[in-house]
C-alpha cells in the first residue's frame, strides 16, 4: 500500500491529485508522475475516534484532514496531544495501522 503516500502529478497540465484518479480532474490526461506527499500544511478538521475497526490495541486514534501547502488535502494520523483546527502541521511517513500482522505505512502529522 505504498501508493497512499504519493500524489499524482499530471504530466500534461501539472495538476496534483490526491487520492489519484484514472483521469486528471483538470485536463482528462492519463499520464502522471509520482510526487511524494510532504512538507507543512494546515489542519482543516480532526477527530479522536474511539469506534475503531479490527486490529487496534489503542483506546482511540486521532485522525485529521490537512490542507498541505503543496496544494492537496490529505487524511492522516495526528500525533498531536491537543489538536486545534487551523494549526500548522508537518508531514511524516510512519506506521499507521497493522492489518493481519503487517505494518501499514502512511501519513502522520505532528505539530510545527
Amino acid at each position, binding site marked *: 500500500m505504498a501508493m*497512499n503516500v504519493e500524489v499524482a502529478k499530471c504530466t500534461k497540465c501539472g495538476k496534483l491529485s490526491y*487520492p489519484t484518479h484514472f483521469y486528471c480532474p483538470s485536463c482528462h490526461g492519463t499520464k502522471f508522475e509520482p510526487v511524494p506527499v510532504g512538507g507543512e500544511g494546515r489542519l*482543516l*478538521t480532526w477527530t479522536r475516534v474511539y469506534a475503531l475497526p479490527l486490529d487496534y490495541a489503542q483506546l482511540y*486514534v486521532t485522525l485529521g*484532514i490537512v490542507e498541505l501547502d503543496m496544494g492537496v488535502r490529505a487524511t492522516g494520523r495526528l500525533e498531536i496531544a491537543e489538536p486545534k*483546527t487551523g494549526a500548522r502541521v508537518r508531514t511524516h511517513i510512519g506506521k499507521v495501522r497493522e492489518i493481519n500482522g503487517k505494518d501499514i505505512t502512511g501519513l502522520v502529522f505532528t505539530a510545527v
Partner: protein
Amino acid sequence: MRDVAIVGVGSTQFGRAQWSLLKMMCEASNDAIVDAGIGERKIDAVYVANMGASRNNRMAGLSSGLVDRMNLYPHTVSETIENGPASGASAIKHGVHSVASGYCDLVLVCGGERMQEVNNFEATEFVSYLSHRYAEYPYGVTLPSLAGMFTRLYMERYGVEARHLAMVAIKNHLNGAKNKKAHLRIPITMEGILTGPDALNNNPWIAEPLRFFDCCPVSDGSSAVLLAPAEMVKEFKKTPVLIAGMGQATDSQAVQDRPDPTELTAVRMAAERAFAMAKLTPKDIDVAELHDAFTILEIVESEECGFFKKGEGHKALERGETQIGGKLPINPSGGLKSRGHPVGNTGVSQIVELVLQLRGEAGDYQVPKQPKHGFAVNFGGFGNNVVATVLKRGV
C-alpha cells in the same frame, strides 16, 4: 414510461432478530403481499437489497434464496443490489424502472440485513470498507470518524452546538418510542446525555465531537414493498402511493477530495432530481424520513434537500419545526437513530414508513393533517452515493 405505485408494505421488528436473514425477509415480504392483497396474481420480479450477507452471514446471491423460500421459482426475475447503505433505495429504483418500462407488472422489493453475527469491531470494520481504499481506509478511517471530522467543521462554520445534535437524538428517540417496530424504544433527556453529571458515562465519545447517542445502532431487520403500474392499483386493497420522483447522485469517494467538505453535493443533486421528476418543490413535502446515521446528517440533509437554508437547519430543529406536530416532521418513525439501521435495508424501511404516514396508518406516531407528499434520503458511504425519493398519496 408508466407511473409506478406502491401497493403493499411490510416490515419485521428491528433490533436483534430471532429469525435467520431469509426468514426475516420472508416475513417482511409476506406482510407486503398480504397488505396489498395480491390474490392469485403472480409476482414478476424480486429485487433484494443487502450490503453484508457475503461477509457477515456467509451467503451470496441472496435474491435466489428469497425466491426459493417464497416459492416464486421458476418464473420470477430476481437479483440482489449492493449499494452500501443506499442499497435499499437503489433496489426500489431498479424495481421502479422495471415496472415503468413495462418489463414487469408486479415487483417485490425486499431489504434485509442481519448484523448480530458479527461483534462491534467487525461491524465497524465491515462498514469502513466504504471508505477510500488508499486515502482513508489504511488510517483506520471509519464512518463515525468521517462523521466526526465533518461535524467539527460544520459546527465551527455554522454555529451548530452539541445541544443541537442532542436535540436530534432526543426527538428521534421520542418518536421511535411510539413505533412498535423500532430498535431503541428508550426516551432520552438533555440532562441524561449532555448536561447532567452522568452525561459522559451515559453518552461517551465515539468520534469527537460525536458521542454514543449521536450515532445510530447496528440493527437486524427486513422491510418490503410491492410495486405495480399506476393503471393497476384498483386491483389492490390499500390506498396506493405514487413514486412521484426518484433522484440519485454519486460524489467523490474520499471526503477530503470535495471542494468544500461541509457540502453534501450528492444529497443536494439527488433531491433536486427527485423534485424535478415529481414536478414538486421542498415546500410541498409534509413528512420526511432522512438518513440520520449520525445526528449531524439529519440537520445537514434537511438543508441540502431545500427544506431550510444552509446553516439554518439546526435553528428550525430548535424551533420544533421538525417534530411530529411541526411544520415539517422529520423522522417520525424514529429514524435510523431509534428505529435502527439494518444497513442494506434502511432505504426500503424509510419508504415503508412514509407509505404508512401517507395512508394515515402510522398510529401513535402519525403525522397530523393527512400528509399527501413524503420525501426520503438514503445516504451511502459518507455521502458518496445518495438516492432521494418523493412519494404522493393516490395516483
